[in-house]
């Protein structure tokens, strides 16, 4: 039947995006959430490691840095997050949709980190996501999103007095844990398998750190439930099928903060930019093919209550975006485990 609403939206916030935010916030522990990207995880992880590390002081001489987990040391973090938006971007233009209302996404993420070596960590995370719109007739979606695994490696470090500069690499892979709906107004993810590669430069002084990282996230093709008719923006492509490309993205994250024995606090900036061509949100356009980008800022705090137990909380917001919700997120979590920096 005919007239369908020219409905716009979709805004699936993916987890990757969340993740980023999270990650940051959580100190890395956080890695969070979901994320599709592995590397991202890595990055996160790194960050996390960072924070934690920072939070906890660095180990005495001998340890390479506070961020890495440390050989055979493990930690487990659980984060809950809630993200909302009532405005989203069609390409880069802000819009609202009365048939969508406010979209709320809640996420519970488990992140485990293990030091395979003094300079090599493995980080695994898995999120459970629930997302729903306050208006219209879009059903709530929930389920396990994408599991990811990341290897983080500290390749080099240079010490200058009480400060240290280290250079790290990370590679990650993520894949959906279940066949969730990937092309709906309200969805929990894009459903692609992703490969994430990134490099980090990390500077740490006794009570201060700053980390910059740059990564590339390669996203695989996904299969939709229906045949695509309008994938080609010029609309002159005769090809039809169920498969579409999910655009790759690049990502830049800068994070800086203060670290003491019992707490740390940091602020971060994240920009994700579509690397390959993608579509814009529009009627009939598959959501996974949209070019997604955003700029977000956030802050994270960590408080150590016991030697191997701490709390974390964070906040972040979207400054600008492209084919994504203009969201704000709050999150909190607990961190259990052995941190080298606690020693």
């Amino acid at each position: 039947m005919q007239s369908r609403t020219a409905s716009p939206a979709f805004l699936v916030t993916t987890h990757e995006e969340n993740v980023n935010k999270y990650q940051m916030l959580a100190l890395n522990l956080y890695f969070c959430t979901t994320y599709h990207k592995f590397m991202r995880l890595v990055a996160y992880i790194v960050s996390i490691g960072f924070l934690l590390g920072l939070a906890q002081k660095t180990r005495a001489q001998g340890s390479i840095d506070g961020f890495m987990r440390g050989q055979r040391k493990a930690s487990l973090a659980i984060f809950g997050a809630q993200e909302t938006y009532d405005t989203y971007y069609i390409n880069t233009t802000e819009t609202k949709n009365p048939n969508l209302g406010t979209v709320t996404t809640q996420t519970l993420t488990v992140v485990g980190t293990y030091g395979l070596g003094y300079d090599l960590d493995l980080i695994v995370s898995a999120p459970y996501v629930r997302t729903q719109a306050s208006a219209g007739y879009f059903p709530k979606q929930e389920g396990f999103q994408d599991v990811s695994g990341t290897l983080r490696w500290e390749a080099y470090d240079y010490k200058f007095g009480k400060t240290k500069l280290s250079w790290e690499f990370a590679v990650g892979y993520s894949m959906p844990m279940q066949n969730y709906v990937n092309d709906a107004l309200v969805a929990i993810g894009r459903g692609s398998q992703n490969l994430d590669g990134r490099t980090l430069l990390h500077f740490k002084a006794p009570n201060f750190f700053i980390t910059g990282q740059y990564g590339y996230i390669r996203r695989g093709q996904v299969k939709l439930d229906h045949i695509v008719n309008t994938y080609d923006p010029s609309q002159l492509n005769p090809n039809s099928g169920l498969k579409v490309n999910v655009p790759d993205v690049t990502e830049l994250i800068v994070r800086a903060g203060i670290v003491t024995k019992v707490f740390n606090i940091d602020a971060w900036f994240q920009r994700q930019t579509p690397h390959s061509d993608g579509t814009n949100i529009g009627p009939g356009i598959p959501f996974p093919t949209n070019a997604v980008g955003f700029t977000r800022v956030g802050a994270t705090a960590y408080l150590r209550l016991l030697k191997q137990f701490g709390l974390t909380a964070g906040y972040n917001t979207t400054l600008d975006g492209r084919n994504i919700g203009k969201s704000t997120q709050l999150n909190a979590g607990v961190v259990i485990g052995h941190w080298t920096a606690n020693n």
Partner: protein
Amino acid sequence: MKARSFSILLSALLLWTVGCKEPIIDEGVLPFIVPTSVDADGGTWRTIILKSATDITVPQPVASTSDTYKHEFSDVKNGVLAATPEQNTAVNYWAAGGVIRWNQIARQLVAKYNIAPGYDYLTGQTTSADAGNPYAGPPFAARVYALLSVAQYDALVVAWRAKYQYNRPSLEQQGIVARVPILNVPSYPSEDAAIAEASCQMLAYFFPNEASWLKAKATEHKQSRLWAGGNVPSDLKAGEDLGATLVTKVIDRAKNDRFTAATDPTNSWQTALSKAPYDQKWKSIELPERAPILPLAGKVKTWYDSTAIVGASPATPPATTSAEFQKALSEVRDLANSRTRDQWRIASYWDNGPSTYSLSGLWNFLVEDLIRQEGQNELRTARTYALLNRAMQDATIASWRTMYTYFVPRPSQIDPTIKTATPIPNAPGYVADRAAVSTAAVAVLACLFPDEATRLNAQATEAALSGLYSGTHFRFDADAGTKLGTVIGQLAVTGAKADGAK
């Protein structure tokens, strides 16, 4: 050392991921259709718009012994060897089948224009459709496919009659090795030129803003037959002329099929709404509310017996106060609350909302594979599409007529807690046009491709139920649509059996 090799490995991986290009998803190389018959009696098949193939006279060609023809022939022969890569690309593209390619083009244009006018959230304005920018919703789309296929079919019947009347031997028989498989029929007039001209003009009638693009496509199509070594220029000219003559007659029919009144400029649907024989009336549940589009599309002229089609109109569905209705409502609610992933997939697959080929276009797409598999020649392909698309347009018309007679609400209007897997069409729900159209389509296809009947029927059943799974239709919408589609499918099948094609 270990660290160094690891870092090299990591860097290489990083470079690799950044370096690779996004793969291009394309149609791949289509196999050329190897026609299984030439249908030498095609010129006697029953035409649709024309009374018979003799309505259009194709002039006698010059003799193949004449100097004019010899000159044309040697030009083509030399041209085949000198074809450029671009020309070869065009040759291969059109060799996939002229009827199929023009059907694809029609689908692309439908998808491009299939955006309902209405409230635009970005600008806060209500957009409107005009002649240059038509709204290609389901009734419009079904009409495009039907008229295009009919024009192609009639043009080819005329071409086939002339081919066997004049019997100008194919170029292959005269020693040219074509670049692509060419159907072994007399070459005059060119079937490709007839399809190209008829299709291009027919589509330009629906989408006037695309006229120059369509013309360029048609020119390429015609020329491709010279580059391929399939026709000489006089074959093309004769095909083009007959296509042009034929298409004016089809456009005459289009001008008089009452479609232009379907947009209901006087809003007469509101009167119909107040008179509707149903206890609770449909209303737009979009925010903001919007008027339905093309509410009078049910009054458009049908291809098959209109008396029989109107006679098959479904009865009033159970009133909202009845136990039967409450049962249907709770079925939708229960399904919506426990929708499985597979039900979601089915709902999404058959949705065909804005910016798609629309449902009739999806069936046009699906039938391509059957046509290839069967090795249908151009004439038979056109017949398949003409039979299929007329049945689908009639089913669409009949569904629209029913919708705007009863104005039965969608499930979510009665119970707003019913969440849907796909957007809710801004139109009444009874009957489900997806059920009527798919059932009629499959009746025709099962007759043309009997080996596929079981699979096709399963698809039609799935399509009919897809609205129930998505939460946008009651089961009685689908059941009534199926019944309606069955009647129309039968009319089409009867027509197919009597048109002279074996």
